[in-house]
């Protein structure tokens, strides 16, 4: 969109919405929406507090552990599926199924099996993220040009060399895309896990603030969480852009 010939940056309407939020908040339309300024003030107050730091640590720990496992298990699985037809035919229906199934329904099972603690939350996070990582990795491997594989063999590349010098880079754009989406899903997973399993971390803060009607605190924490999720996602988007120059021409 242009104003007087200047192109406005993509997410800049959020500034407008922010102003609207402030106005609605100041007008006291509903107590659920405090003024944005108050939310920011509260944000800076809250960030330093012990309870916030602990919540951040709990959540970050579960999140990073979950993402770690989903990458470490998901990428090799996706690669195997992309390269081996038998494995693919056996696993693909399940992967597709879990991708679209309401994973939330599995959380009670996890609670019952693994208890009410961090372990279950990490597993929930992993489950939310892993399927898309598997699918995208598989897609990345499957689209590797036949001639590139033949080229590697014709020059006598060892399997290690072939993997690290060719296949990995050839599939990287898709893999990065999958990890980026997986990371966003992992955030949802960790929060849903916290809300349902054991109220720790940010989930606990949300419960605490909402039940005590501390709306400014609630929105502050939500904004922090969202900013973190967005930053991590943008890191991956940046990496994707770095490989984009060759992505379209493989």
């Amino acid at each position, binding site marked *: *969109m242009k104003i007087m010939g200047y192109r*406005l940056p*993509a*997410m*800049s*309407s*959020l500034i*407008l*919405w922010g102003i609207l939020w402030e106005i609605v908040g100041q007008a006291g339309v*509903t107590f*659920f929406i405090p003024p944005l300024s108050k939310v920011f003030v509260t944000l800076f107050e809250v960030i330093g507090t012990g309870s916030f730091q602990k919540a951040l640590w709990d959540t970050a720990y579960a999140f990073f552990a979950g993402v770690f496992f989903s990458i470490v298990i998901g990428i090799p699985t996706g690669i195997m599926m992309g390269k081996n037809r*038998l494995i693919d*035919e*056996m*696993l693909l*229906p*399940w992967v597709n*199924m879990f991708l*679209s*199934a*309401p*994973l*939330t*329904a*599995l*959380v*009670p*099972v996890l*609670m*019952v*099996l693994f208890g009410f603690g961090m372990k279950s939350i990490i597993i929930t996070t992993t489950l939310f993220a892993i399927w898309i990582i598997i699918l995208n990795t598989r897609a990345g491997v499957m689209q590797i040009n036949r001639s590139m594989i033949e080229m590697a063999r014709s020059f006598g590349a060892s399997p290690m060399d072939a993997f690290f010098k060719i296949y990995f880079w050839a599939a990287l754009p898709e893999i990065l895309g999958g990890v980026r989406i997986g990371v*966003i899903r992992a*955030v*949802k997973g*960790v*929060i*849903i896990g916290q*809300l*349902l399993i054991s109220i720790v971390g*940010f*989930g606990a803060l*949300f*419960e605490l603030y*909402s*039940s005590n*009607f501390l709306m400014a605190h*609630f929105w502050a924490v*939500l904004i922090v*969480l*969202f900013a973190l*999720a*967005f930053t991590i*996602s943008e890191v991956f988007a940046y990496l994707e852009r770095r490989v984009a120059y060759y992505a379209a021409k493989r």
Partner: protein
Amino acid sequence: MSNRSLLLKLLSAAILFGAWEIAGRIPVSYAFPTFVESMQALARMFFDGSLFVAYGETLKPLVVGIAISAVLGIAIGLWIGLSSTFDWLFSPIFIVMQAAPLAALIPILVMAYGIGLTSKVFVVCIMAMPVIVLNTSGAVRNTPSSIKEMARSFLGTNWDVVFKIILPAASPVIFSGLRLGISAGFIGAILSELKITPTGVGDIITYSRSIADYPSMYAAIFSIIVLAVLFLNLLEKLEKTLFEGNYRGYASD
């Protein structure tokens, strides 16, 4: 070849259920029933009707929420795709909604709208709408300009271009957005039952867990997953038959 893939699917299902059965017998945990036990519980709930009553409850907010999300979502997505002003104004909202863990908002919604149907419908809507809107707007914006130009060269009006070119060209992506939205809505429906008030299937899960009737709990969860998967597969088949022309290439290949 399709026989082989069917065989492999059945084989992998057998392996999975077999593993479940074995794990239940070891038992992996006191809370892990065998596959057979769970299926028995499922059959019981099926035949005494309690399963249907429960689903009746659960599906109410889901169906209403999806219907609203689909209609509103596609309309908004269309508008965003067509108008760059609207795009600038509203895309960021939906992008934020897509990435944010909206589950955290559930307690707020409950406070605002109580524990009844309204808040559950709301939950389904906020989970389903962003992906529907973003898919629709993306597809509309990416309509190949060649056929839009063709329509204008043959004197198509703006209305013609929207309804005869843009919407048909965008329908596969819109439909896949609907599928993603429905599965997100499903998550919303279950979540609201587990969190807000136990009714329907969510109630079966929480209640049977509290009385340690694990076979019933697992049976209920199994039924949700099976239902969701069946429904989405059905949608995919519907999509394939409706949009046959679109699936085997593009006219400009």
